């Protein structure tokens, strides 16, 4: 499973996906979002959506000193929060800048591949690919 960016040109920068992600976790606000939308240098240039690609050989997990990022069989990682020491190695390592930082808990925000953001995007930018990784299992 993973979230794919199907049609970035349609993104309007509403951040509804980010707010949905946090809502799904039982909160509101932005600190706990595991997806991010940025303007690409002023709104006139459109938006960039950053989201975990569910790598099979995830660089974030490779640099984690405490094995707090457990590699999933079908791509991506799970965060084992108790093991995390807040070193930010994973943030640095992620090639696509999709490991975000929750400065309230001092731990990374790691996508859980639930698809709630994609379900909430009003403009069909995101696609929840449930088949991702299945063939490789």
């Amino acid at each position: 499973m993973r979230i794919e960016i199907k049609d970035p040109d349609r993104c309007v920068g509403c951040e509804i996906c980010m707010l949905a992600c946090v809502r799904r976790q039982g909160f509101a606000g932005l600190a706990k979002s595991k997806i991010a939308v940025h303007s690409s240098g002023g709104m006139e240039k459109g938006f960039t959506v950053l989201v975990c690609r569910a790598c099979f050989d995830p660089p974030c997990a490779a640099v984690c000193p405490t094995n707090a990022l457990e590699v999933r069989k079908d791509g991506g990682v799970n965060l084992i929060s108790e093991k995390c020491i807040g070193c930010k190695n994973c943030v640095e390592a992620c090639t696509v800048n999709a490991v975000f930082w929750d400065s309230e808990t001092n731990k990374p925000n790691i996508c859980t591949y639930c698809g709630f953001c994609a379900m909430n995007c009003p403009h069909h930018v995101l696609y929840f690919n449930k088949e991702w990784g299945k063939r490789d299992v």
Partner: protein
Amino acid sequence: MFEDKFSRVLYIDLSKKSFTIKSRPDLFEKWLGGTGVGIQILKEECPKNVDPFSPDNTVIFAVGPITSLYPLASKTIAIFKSPLTGNLGESHAGGRSAVSIMMAGYGAIVIKGKSDIPVYLSIFDNEVRFHDARAIWGIKDAITVGKIIRQKETFSGQRSIMRIGRAGENLVSFASLNTETYRHFGRLGLGAVFGSKNLKAIVIAGKRTINLSDPKAYLRIYKNILDETTSSLMKKYHDLGTAANVLPLHEIGGLPIENLNRTSYEGAIELSGENLAQNYLGRRIACTGCPVACVHIAAFRDPHEEEKYFYKTSMIGYDYEPIYSLGTMLGIKDAKGFLKLMDRTEKLGLDAMSSGVALAWATEMLNKNLITEKETLVKFSFGNWERYIEGLENIVSMPNDFYKALAKGTSYASKIYGGKDFALNFGKNEMPGYHTGPAAHLGWFLGARHSHLDNAGYSMDQSLKGNYPRPEKLIDNLIEEEANRQILSSLVVCFFARAIYLNFDNTINCLKTIGIDLTKEELKELGMEIYRQKMSYKTQEGWLPNFQDLPKRIFETSAPFGKISEEYMNKAIDYFRKRLEKDFR
């Protein structure tokens, strides 16, 4: 009941370059947020009868308890003493401003004093920094200022950048404060108040968590409201934006054209939302938290003056009101001309509405030989947009006494040069784009900020279809509607979501999820009380609406349901003054 972060107020003193943060649950528990809280802070902080350009004038930005929590709760309100009207200034903007203020941890930001040198502020969480802005003061366009600050500051891609242009620096009474390039605190001269304080810009951002009293209910109620935003009304705003209004108003004969000498003309097709979308639309964007995305931006290709086969491509935001004021009011018949005027207005940091109406008045003055080219320096004629670009520049640089007066608004200029009968301002604020009948004109003449969204008189006109009740009844309806709208502007939600949030059940449910229990009756009462607070402030500062102050032009040009009766308007205003005296002083 309120979480601390909804009720924290950041007080900034520009004279001392210092700030304090206070918890003010007293304010937010009683008045919700937005205008409710804003008007109270204005009364606390801003001395009576203050000069709008005095360091004591106070600018308040406020968001509401459901900001960043629910769809379309995406606006910030600004309250201040207006240099254009000399009275209550209230202006609303979206973009990222509201969510940024809430995520930085504040319910309101209060700015007082005056810096000795130009500064800009950065506000990230609990930190406020004062930066030297001398190098960016005087830069030709407000868009470049945004670019420069963007490169210098952190929170890339997710912050709100509010800034003024040269109009604000030069204290043009209707200078705007631009935010995120395409959104504005446009009306009533907030940009000039920033200029008078030597404040060039504010960049603000943050990320935090809001705890909920009932997360499950939150998911459910959010979904209900999100589903309602995908209704057909909202679809219209997504597809064509507010520009969707051009053709319908033209067809009923309610579109003000050439200084309201006419109400329909062939240029309407060219300036319609349909034409702009088909031939120019480059991108749609949304205010943070809003699924509608009504903000329409044209991609405009302009051949370079000197180099062959070289084009400058500009992204230019457009909306109904600027299409009216910089387009139809000036008799512009081609979209290209309108977009160029829009672009220049944006770069100079002017309020598009006041600017267009001021230039339309100047054109008619010239046509009637009440003034000459000695005053205007440019030979304005309806439809000739190149000349109006020079006009906009002159309003900002003020090369002579005429432009010095015009930069104070059409009301002021018409007192000196004449032409008061066709200077289309109401309560000294230039009119919005609806000549639909008596309710529209009464609505903004008597409303707190003289805006078409105060009480939606324009929409009453269209639903009454000429069957007007007694003037007293119409006034009562306008007052009730405006009181209800205080709830919207205290929550603070976009007025396009009025159908959703003035369904009080929705609002009651939303507030419950964050631990606020109010009944429909209590909400309505609160709305009326905020309205009363505003009206008492306005009368305290010397406002009293007078029939004689109405521009006579509105009685000369037929509205969709016939000519407007002077007698009806006179009676209505009389009755309003009685209610003001009795209930709202």
